[in-house]
């Protein structure tokens, strides 16, 4: 079995890994057979409904729950008066204050839409009705509602995010060509098709939580710590997830409320966060602003980048949306300085949304690069190639693999870039202005250990078992492919069980790292299972292979036989029967020897402390992409429609082109929404999200999405992962918004530096 052999990407003749398999869970999902967390049938269930604050800052003075408690079916109303008996849990890295009480329904209000009470009733309707009867009195203070609030200030410099080399200020001042501009991105939200919520049940001190989860083990740890019970007492069940995009990797305050209510009431509780409530029940992408200065020679050689950015965070916690995340990586530049500030405002703590940091960072940098191209009068493709980074200037390390030059050249060729006329407003299609733009993207390779169990059963079928999750990206499918390839069986013969914290440990489905991590574990466990099976076949007294004299066997197409075709050939079922085994089980993880004890497992599966960054070793490892976008602008109305996209990706080896392409397209579609539509509107008077529903928070419809051609130009990168892949899930959105903004400038001569590009900015 030669899994390490390089295969041409996307070729239908590919083998198991690299083949275009459809999603194994697709039929279940499309036929309604997949049970989601809020559909879990649980007997004796009661319903919790949240009450959210209607002020942005201040204090709950009193909660009058009298009417609510008296309403039909109401079992209990939880308010800031109630001590739910919880303790603060660890952060992502496993750091935890000792015995600090956790009040998920706080008295202090720090943002509009903060959960401050919850009503539990026999039915959802009763709880919803009673929640409206809860009367809250506040003592209000003046909120800071956003980056532009006069009281927001400049924010606090985050030292650890400062990057620099050379003397950027001096080199900028001395440069022939200088550009400077400020770019802004608004609050953006995940709006997954499956809204958030959970069903929770206690049996004694054992807690089962059905909740969509990008990280079953991490969330199990959180619940265990909240309730001060052993981690093994908590089971997070999340076999199917209707999209996460970063929003389902942790337990939120409402999760704690639901679980605490269930414990107090002694009944299972379901809490469904309504769509409007999701806009403040957890954080979306923080609003950002960034100023970029670029100095270059007259012939387009970069001399300096000076980058100053800021993002908002909450007054409760720091979550930097790192505006400088992509800046040091994309181009060769001898002098660079980036800094990032955090501005606390009265918002829910922002969170990770597809390519956090890289996304707004690339919007700034890739817009600025094209601004420079016009300042110099040079084709923006040529400018990018001229400043191609042959190594990582930040770390000084060589790239592991970087096919960005290929992405740019292949993308340009397929797109037809050479037919572009550089002058703005110089291309038309009838009445409409046509514009072409480029945006490059990058996303780091993050590495983490994971664990998997392989079972070969008596009937020859194979089970892959892991607590890793599939939120639509295709984990089920690629793990079946991986096991099938190692074990020489058809993929249909492999069953994959995922999404349960009681199963072997796995890292978070975030940072585009799960596929690399979990395929490595499955590959290792499956190899061990294959070796064990072959060992038994050669040595078991009842095995027909025992006397063949062979010193190894091969498994292919579900049959085990002697190499070169001499001797017996058995199906796996026949062999298992012959040797009298009903199962072979191997559990393996990818932790290093010597660091593979229980504490290492806990640290690796339930925290992010052991995750290795892109430059942890001798190399610098990243995924790359180049987007080529065509827009058509109806100048009468200022309306922009994206009419064509060609994007070329270097994500290393692609395990399943059909699924990878789907993720890339999904990222590009999200990027189109970000560029043209999406914006959380915050009423400055109340710090309240006004468009907190899918009628007013616009995401693209089918009619907004043109043909999107995606191309893989990657080569296997075995430094990045066991099977040679790099991250696929997030890089696709990075660079889309600037490509569109650049195309809009090319079409109209108008540079829009604050997203989204709505029509009034163009008329």
């Amino acid at each position, binding site marked *: 079995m030669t899994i390490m052999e390089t295969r041409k990407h996307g070729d239908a003749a590919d083998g198991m890994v690299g083949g275009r398999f459809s999603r194994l869970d697709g039929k279940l999902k499309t036929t309604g057979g997949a049970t989601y967390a809020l559909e879990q049938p649980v007997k004796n269930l009661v319903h919790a409904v949240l009450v959210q604050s209607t002020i942005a800052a201040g204090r709950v003075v009193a909660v009058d729950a009298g009417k609510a408690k008296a309403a039909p079916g109401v079992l209990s109303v939880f308010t800031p008066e109630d001590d739910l008996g919880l303790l603060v849990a660890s952060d992502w890295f496993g750091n935890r204050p000792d015995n600090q009480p956790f009040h998920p329904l706080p008295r202090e209000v720090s943002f509009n839409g903060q959960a401050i009470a919850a009503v539990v009733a026999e039915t959802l*309707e009763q709880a919803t009705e009673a929640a409206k009867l809860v009367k809250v009195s506040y003592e209000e203070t003046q909120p800071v509602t956003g980056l532009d609030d006069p009281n927001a200030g400049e924010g606090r410099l985050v030292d650890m995010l400062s990057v620099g080399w050379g003397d950027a200020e001096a080199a900028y001042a001395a440069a022939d060509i200088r550009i400077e501009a400020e770019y802004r991105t608004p609050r953006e939200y995940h709006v997954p098709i499956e809204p958030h919520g959970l069903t929770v049940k206690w049996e004694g001190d054992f807690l089962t939580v059905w909740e969509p989860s990008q990280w079953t083990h991490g969330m199990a740890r959180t619940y265990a710590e909240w309730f001060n019970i052993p981690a093994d007492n908590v089971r997070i069940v999340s076999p199917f997830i209707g999209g996460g995009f970063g929003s389902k990797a942790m337990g939120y305050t409402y999760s704690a409320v639901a679980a605490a209510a269930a414990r107090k009431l002694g009944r299972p509780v379901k809490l469904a966060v309504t769509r409007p409530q999701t806009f403040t029940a957890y954080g979306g992408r923080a609003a950002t602003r960034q100023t970029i200065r670029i100095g270059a020679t007259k012939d387009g050689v970069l001399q300096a980048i000076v980058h100053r950015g800021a993002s908002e965070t909450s007054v409760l916690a720091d979550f930097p949306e790192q505006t400088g995340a992509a800046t040091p990586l994309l181009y060769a530049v001898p002098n660079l300085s980036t800094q990032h500030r955090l501005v606390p405002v009265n918002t829910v703590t922002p969170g990770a949304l597809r390519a956090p940091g890289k996304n707004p960072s690339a919007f700034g940098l890739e817009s600025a690069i094209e601004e420079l191209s016009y300042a110099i009068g040079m084709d923006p493709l040529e400018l990018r190639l001229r400043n191609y980074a042959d190594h990582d200037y930040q770390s000084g390390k060589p790239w592991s693999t970087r096919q960005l030059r290929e992405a740019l050249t292949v993308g340009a060729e397929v797109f037809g870039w050479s037919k572009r006329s550089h002058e703005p407003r110089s291309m038309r299609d009838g009445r409409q202005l046509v514009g072409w733009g480029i945006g490059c993207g990058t996303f780091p390779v993050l590495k983490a250990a994971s664990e998997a169990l392989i079972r070969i059963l008596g009937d020859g079928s194979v089970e892959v078992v892991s607590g890793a999750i599939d939120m639509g990206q295709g984990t089920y499918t690629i793990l079946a492919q991986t096991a099938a390839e190692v074990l020489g069986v058809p993929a249909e013969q492999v069953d994959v069980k995922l999404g349960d914290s009681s199963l072997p440990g796995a890292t978070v489905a975030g940072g585009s790292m799960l596929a690399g991590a979990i395929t490595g574990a499955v590959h290792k466990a499956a190899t061990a299972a294959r070796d064990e099976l072959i060992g038994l076949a050669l040595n078991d007294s009842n095995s027909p292979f025992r006397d063949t004299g062979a010193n190894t066997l091969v498994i292919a197409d579900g049959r085990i036989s002697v190499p070169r075709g001499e001797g017996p050939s058995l199906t796996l079922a026949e062999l298992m029967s012959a040797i009298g085994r009903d199962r072979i089980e191997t559990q393996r993880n990818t932790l290093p020897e010597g660091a593979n004890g229980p504490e290492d497992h806990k640290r690796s599966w339930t925290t992010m402390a052991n995750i290795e960054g892109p430059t942890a070793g001798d190399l610098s490892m990243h995924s790359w992409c180049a987007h080529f976008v065509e827009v058509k602008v109806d100048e009468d*109305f200022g309306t922009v429609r994206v009419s064509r996209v060609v994007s070329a990706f270097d994500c290393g080896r692609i395990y399943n082109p059909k699924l990878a392409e789907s993720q890339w397209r999904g990222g590009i579609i999200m990027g189109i929404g970000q560029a043209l539509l999406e914006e959380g*509107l915050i009423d400055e008077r109340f710090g309240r999200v*006004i468009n907190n529903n899918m009628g007013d928070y616009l995401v*693209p*419809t089918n009619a907004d999405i043109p043909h999107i051609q995606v191309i893989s130009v990657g080569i296997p990168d075995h430094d990045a992962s066991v099977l040679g892949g790099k991250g696929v899930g997030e890089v696709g959105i990075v660079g889309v918004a600037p490509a569109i903004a650049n195309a809009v400038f090319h079409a109209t001569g108008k540079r829009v530096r604050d997203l989204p590009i709505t*029509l*009034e900015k163009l008329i």
Partner: protein
Amino acid sequence: MRAFTYERASSVEAAAKAAASNPEAKFIAGGTNLLDLMKLEIETPTHLIDVNDIGLDKIEPTQDGGLRIGALVRNTDLAAHETVRRDYGLLSRALLAGASGQLRNKASTAGNLLQRTRCPYFYDTNQPCNKRQPGSGCSAIGGFSRQHAVIGTSEACIATNPSDMAIAMRALDAVVETVKGDGSRRAIPIADFHRLPGDTPHIETVLEPGEMITAVVLPPPIGGRQIYRKVRDRASYAFALVSVGAVIQSNGTGRIAVGGVAHKPWRVEAAEAELPNGARAAAHVLLADARPTEENRFKVELVERTLAAVVSEARG
């Protein structure tokens, strides 16, 4: 959602009578707007009278050569009707520019005329809104007003009417036929049907309590180029920032009604008289009294541009 009782009316008269006997009752047809509003408790009827089975689902020619559209004709069926497509193309196009296929399959003609504003403050029950809670104040004034009205507004309300269909009906001089609880009937010109907000923005039409729409009548066809142009943020499934419904004759005269700018379909006959002088002239009269906010000032410009595009298309 509040508890409510429900009955399925068997005839027009029975429905009207049932409504007359209960001031807390509402008619329900497609429910595409009402049910959402009930879930949010913005509408809290104690009784629903289902009017889906009272025979108002026909489209028939009138004696004078016009068209009578039953109140319960679905938007999809109306848009696809052969006579509508041939003689009242504006109506068909306006309908198809609105909502989604699924919603149009359910939404009724009368319900479309009665759909309520999409002002986000109307929907957010934690915020004051004179339309939702008379006298509580208008949050949109001084708040987010990009989507809001630029003309015909009041100190009490700057909401818009979100209907695409109503713009076409206004340009086509439709007449709304109704029945009251006492069995009396009346015909209301569409121009008089929707009200400006004034100081009673919660009263959106001239319908009296319990009065039911039975049909919308279109006068005989007037020919001309019939164009509906809707400008919106995304390509589909979004309300108009500005829309223009127009019937332009070959001599340059015509009718124009504008959506997305007012509490009702906005049509000014004096502006139409300026049409032969060009879109700019017509737009100036049409929006002469506009009082936009900082955030929706662009709509004034957008109306002129949209109108110009429509006039140009009609000439082309």
